[in-house]
């Protein structure tokens, strides 16, 4: 394996861990607002559900942050969940997935 592939791999692995460092605190504030206000339009401001399912931590048990980020980025075809990739980077989606798993109330 060439060195560049190793580099790319290690970057891939490191990216999610470095997520919150890569997002400015202004952008984190925007993302939090987006999560509560805009995701909240369908999932409830307290993530207790609406047109979309509840996203409180105990409802997400067994779901990984990777899985949640992929749903955020690519949506769920055939449902009302849209792909957010045009508006969010993978790092940002991962940050939001982590927020959901922690619970947004904190």
């Amino acid at each position, binding site marked *: 394996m060439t060195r560049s592939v190793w580099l790319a791999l290690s970057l891939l692995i490191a990216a999610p861990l470095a997520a919150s460092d890569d997002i400015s605190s202004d952008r984190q504030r925007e993302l939090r607002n987006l999560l*509560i206000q805009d995701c909240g339009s369908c999932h409830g401001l307290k993530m207790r*559900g609406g*047109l979309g399912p509840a996203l409180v931590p105990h409802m997400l048990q067994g779901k990984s942050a990777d899985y949640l980020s992929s749903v955020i980025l690519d*949506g769920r075809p055939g449902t009302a969940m*849209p792909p957010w990739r045009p*508006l969010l980077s993978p790092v940002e989606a991962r940050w939001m997935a982590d927020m959901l798993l922690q619970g947004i109330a904190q």
Partner: protein
Amino acid sequence: MNRFSCCFLLALLSGSTAAARGTGDLGLFVERASGSVQIIETSGNTSIGRIEGLGDLSHASVVYSRDARYAYLFGRDGGLSKLDILDVELSGRTLQSGNSIGGAISQDGRLVAVSNYKPGGVKVFHADTLELVADIPATFGDAGQLSKVIGLVDAPGQKFVFALWDAGEIWVLDMSDLANPSIEKFTGIGRNPYDALITPDGRYYIAGLFGEDGMALLDLWNPAAGVTRILPNYGKGEQKLPVYKMPHLEGWAVAGDLAFVPAVGRHEVLVINMRTWQEAARIKVHGQPIFVMARPDGRQVWVNFALPDNDTIQVIDTQALAVIRQLKPGKGVLHMEFEPRGEEVWLSVRDENRVEIYDTSTFERKSSIPATKPSGIFFTSRAHRIGL
């Protein structure tokens, strides 16, 4: 008259003068994150006060009692609150379900109905006491599943009409005999109705479909004719954009024979000829429309948009069928409400924490009211309109 009784009389007089006030220029807006509303008046464009402790108000909406004193507020968390807007206080509240989406008030003003996501169905309450009158689970399929209910409106004849998101059905609930509510069901109306409206004359109920193209139309004057599909070919085979917010079909933007509705997943407003129910035009707009609302005289239609274009408003001239103005009130323009005769419009600008008031002829901002994450705005002029 002695001095004491004179003072007493004066106090009585001044007391009653202070209390006497009409409600025709009152209204409220929802502060969705803090679970509160601000009561406002549109003569001087001021805030009168705030009522707090109303729960999760994402997507909260309001209908008014026929005396236009009480607002019934439908909260996301299933809370039904009765607000006295004259005395600016909560006068009743019940947690009637786990998760609700909206409601309606009956023709005679005596019943308030709520549409629920969980458990899916409609509950009907006495408007005075908020006591339960009828519980209508939205069951469908062989296994008796419950559907989320959307697009609940009142209709003439003590009826409520609503649609079932999961089942693709429209139900007409007749409450004229309180002890024996009757339901007429229309099945197979299309996949995932997301919202619905009734025309201002109470005749046509129209549900927008998220799961497929077109809209489902029910003529309440001729229910035996069943539900027909309108705009069936609209958008077939075209790639839709991601829908970051469901459009709303609140009210009915009508000018002459033309109706204006938001297209789903497209940067367009659809114009429908209401005589033929055919598409009359498509107007290109700035983003995906959410609310498409006519000024009360029908000369203008104001449009707001989903993310990432929710900082913008566009105004359509209904004669020219063209956008004549673009405004940038700020990030998160969620809702708009015209004053009863349309000379001013109120806009909630969520992320700027302001409600803005614009002149609809000059398009100038006239005033601004500080608010906490404002969303829906509702004026008492709705009290006397069918379907609102």
